[in-house]
């Protein structure tokens, strides 16, 4: 997950274009890491997470490209709805619901760090409400929760969007790696019992891609 230099023209607010760019950036990252995600899912799941994410975010990219959104959230709601209607599996409703929740919390033409922090929190709440998983269960939450905490902490400390998103992406990757020694208690990997230990969770891995894409979109270097 390398970071390419992106101009930071609008460092302290997200606009409708950037929301769209985020979706596209996730799609690009998923495209690049598709086989890796599927491989991770092959070890402790059913070998479809890469294909699932790819199908969903390709469709979401197409859907948001066709829009003329008025609010930051509009594109994200569309992306979420598209994920729900194209992905299937566990990740479809979980990511779909999260993006819809994030989008609904961004019903303004632009949004700042605090507002984005609240929106990301709504996303996590949606995942937890649907999936009933807790941190430590070896799911996407183990990347999402620390990412959100880092973002909130930076936002509270007055950091700009790029800095907050970069901190979130870094924390997501740490969280992603922390899933390796965990024993899964939710999702398909839980069927393996102790044998799920020693493998990185595919959903936590895609969540790290989502936050890295956000950091890139918001201008991190």
């Amino acid at each position, binding site marked *: 997950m390398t970071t390419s230099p992106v101009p930071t023209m609008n460092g302290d607010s997200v606009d409708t274009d950037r929301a769209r760019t985020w979706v596209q950036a996730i799609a690009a990252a998923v495209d690049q890491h598709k086989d890796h995600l599927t491989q991770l899912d092959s070890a402790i*799941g059913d070998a479809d997470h890469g294909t*699932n994410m790819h*199908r969903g975010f390709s469709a979401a990219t197409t859907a948001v490209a066709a829009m003329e959104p008025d609010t930051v959230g509009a594109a994200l709601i569309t992306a979420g709805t598209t994920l*729900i*209607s194209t992905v*299937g599996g566990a990740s*479809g409703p979980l990511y779909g619901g999260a993006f819809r929740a994030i989008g609904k919390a961004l019903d303004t033409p632009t949004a700042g760090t605090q507002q984005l922090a609240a929106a990301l929190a709504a996303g996590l709440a949606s995942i937890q409400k649907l999936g009933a998983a807790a941190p430590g269960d070896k799911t996407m939450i183990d990347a999402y929760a620390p990412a959100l905490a880092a973002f909130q902490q930076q936002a509270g400390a007055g950091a700009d969007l790029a800095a907050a998103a970069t901190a979130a992406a870094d924390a997501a990757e740490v969280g992603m790696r922390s899933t390796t020694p965990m024993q899964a*208690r939710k*999702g398909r990997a839980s069927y*393996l019992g102790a044998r799920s230990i020693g493998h990185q969770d595919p959903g936590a891995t895609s969540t790290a891609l989502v936050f890295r894409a956000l950091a890139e979109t918001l201008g991190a270097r």
Partner: protein
Amino acid sequence: MKKFINAPEAVLAEALSGIAAAHPELKVDAENKVISRGDAGRRGKVALVSGGGSGHEPLHGGFVGLGMLDAACPGEVFTSPVPGQMLAAAQAVDGGAGVLFIVKNYTGDVLNFQMAAELAAEEGITVETVLVDDDVAVKDSTWTAGRRGTGATVFVEKIAGALAEQGAGLAAVAEMAKRVNAASRSFAVALTACTTPASGKPGFDLPEDEMEVGVGIHGEPGRRREKLRPAKEIVATALDAILTDQPLDTGDETIVMVNGLGGTPLIELYVVFNEVAAALADKGVVVARNLVGNYVTSLDMAGASLTVCRADADMLSLWDAPVNTPALRWGS
């Protein structure tokens, strides 16, 4: 990867088109990916809808027809279908008496069917949901995803389908489906991994003298790996897991399925059934009805699952009721 396909992305659409060509008595909605009965939507009949990832054929599409499912929604291979599909299915088959969603207990299936149920309710369709969770290889607990749904799905679809065909109401059909699930337990063993079209590689490597014990139907490894053993001992392991969870008494009547996971020769399934029948007879348990064959598969996995349902008289008589689907057919 060696498969009779054109492209991994095209498998589902092309298979659906093949199903449509092979079974003109079914309706196949290619756009929404819904397989339904030719006479679906009959007024007053409770409609049964099931679905799940593809790769388990004949489940579920092969069980659409008189006396069983009204519609099936196949997802991508090993991927739950999406709510829109399920909604389209519910709309296609609702005859005003409501729709029963038969959902195998996997996070993806549960969440997507849950969303579909909400959408259907918004459309004015009454939906009940039954979760199938019969796989005793997975420990049940409120802290986990719970047990997987596997072979018992066939029993639930057959028996609840027969009751719906007889005109019972939604609550009664849902209740019977739950009773059948509650009375059923399964356990599976695999000798090889399966290969999904998208991943192109077997899900795991298994040495020539080992087997995966307690596997699911999605190519995941099982609860543990053991040395390969004779059929008699494998059956003893499976039955032991099943009967520990649900003890059976002398004289209890059962419906038993010995199911191939896709790559197991039928002659071996009969060898397995022979052991099951002998072991149950030893315990005085009656195998009143049985299925031996490929019903809930996991692509090309060489493996077998055992499902035992303690069946009461109602269940047995509904089991015997006519069924006319591509994969299960009897009565008139």
